[in-house]
């Protein structure tokens, strides 16, 4: 494994809670691991498992899903739908040979910038230990093409 491996984390955050927390962390000038790339969606219930598989295929070493705390969803129960998909998707990716730890779900409210910082730092550490996923490089040429 390369020594200075910096994992790529794709964070898919809901507009109302976790994205706002990331915003707060930013304006409060909190320091955290620079490995995170954030994608904003309106609700964690919008996160189709396809997005996550696509991210893994195209170079993500880990995917972090952020949503509102249970009961706090702006759209009443989008985060519960996301929770069920996440639990099933974890089973699926481990069957595909991808470590379950590469997919992480956290409930982070708009005021919990410190929790976001902690989670991202922790996750980056976990991924550094796991090493690069480099899924696309491991696939043969004919499997890289997409529909």
């Amino acid at each position, binding site marked *: 494994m390369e020594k200075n491996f910096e994992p790529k984390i794709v964070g898919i955050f809901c507009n109302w809670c976790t994205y706002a927390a990331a915003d707060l962390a930013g304006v409060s000038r909190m320091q955290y691991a620079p490995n995170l790339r954030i994608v904003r969606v309106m609700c964690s219930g919008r996160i*189709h*498992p*396809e997005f996550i*598989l*696509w991210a*893994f*295929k195209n170079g993500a070493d880990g995917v972090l899903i952020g949503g509102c705390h*249970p009961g706090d969803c702006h759209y009443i*129960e989008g985060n*519960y*739908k996301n*929770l*069920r*998909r996440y*639990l*099933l*998707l974890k*089973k*699926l990716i481990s*069957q*595909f*040979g*991808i470590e379950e730890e590469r997919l992480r779900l956290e409930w982070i409210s708009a005021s919990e910038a410190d929790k976001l910082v902690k989670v991202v730092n922790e996750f980056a550490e976990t991924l550094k230990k796991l090493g690069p996923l480099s*899924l696309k490089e*491991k*696939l*043969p040429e*004919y*499997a890289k*093409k*997409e*529909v």
Partner: protein
Amino acid sequence: MAEKPKIALYWCASCGGCEEAVVDLAEDILTVVEKVDIVFWPVALDFKREDVEKMKDGEILATFINGAVRLSEQEDMVKLLRRKSKLIIAFGACAHMGGVPGLANAQTKEKIFEYYYHTGPIVVNPEKNKPSPDFAKNKGFELPEFYKDVRALDQVIDVDYYIPGCAPPPNIVKNAVLTLLSGNLPPKGKVLASDRSLCYDCPLNETKPDEGIKIKEIKRYYEPEKVDPEKCLLLQGLPCLGPVTRGGCDALCIKGNMPCTGCFGPLDGVKDYGAAALSYIASIIDSNDEKEINEILEKGIPDPIGLFYMYSLPKSLLFKKLIKEE
């Protein structure tokens, strides 16, 4: 009289069910034969590879290929047929998406050989021989190479149209053939079946409650006689994949008390059939508690790849199981 258009049929890694599906056209096959010349069909007619090689490039109007691609021989043949044909039609779920043979991508070639030629319960092979081109050469015969992965047809050659199904039902085959012969060709890459999901065609769709479907238990399919044929199978807890599967099959399985397993593949615009199926099955589970959800999943879906990618593993985003390098 003008010469009739030529068509060819070929099979790769398939079970033979798709050939059966052609024969299932019954008397309608006569309408087809009236209009075309079948110039190559290994399962039924005595034409050889040489006969195809002699043809001019593009001489065949359309070639229907069923089965996934795993052997070097299959790859050679489909590449040859691609050159000789104007249109290539992937016929059936295996050519379309990899099909059931595609599930072998969840295993390594080595493991499969190990079981089938060494450790399997009915195998006697004390010399531990394994079939390979080299092994065959030493014994004085030829064997094709067995590739590492199973591929769908369009991962090997350019494909013009797809006829879905495992096997494609007669009405789908008939309509597809007539469309191709009419000369009024649909846009390239089209799947020649319905553009809407199976639920639109399903006779049980009316029994679906207005407030949506919620299930507390995902049942595994053992006892067809215990299924109520008058009630949506999802409401009965059976993981029917109809809502995310392309329609056009007239809900044949559901009429036989059997949940849809997704042989027609995804609707247009879906990149990964299994992800769509997973997403929707997860969203109808009636629980918001992590522990309870896990219990339901543990009991109901012990094998997610087997359920969600039964016919489409090679066409999925992840393509195959990731094997750790030692």
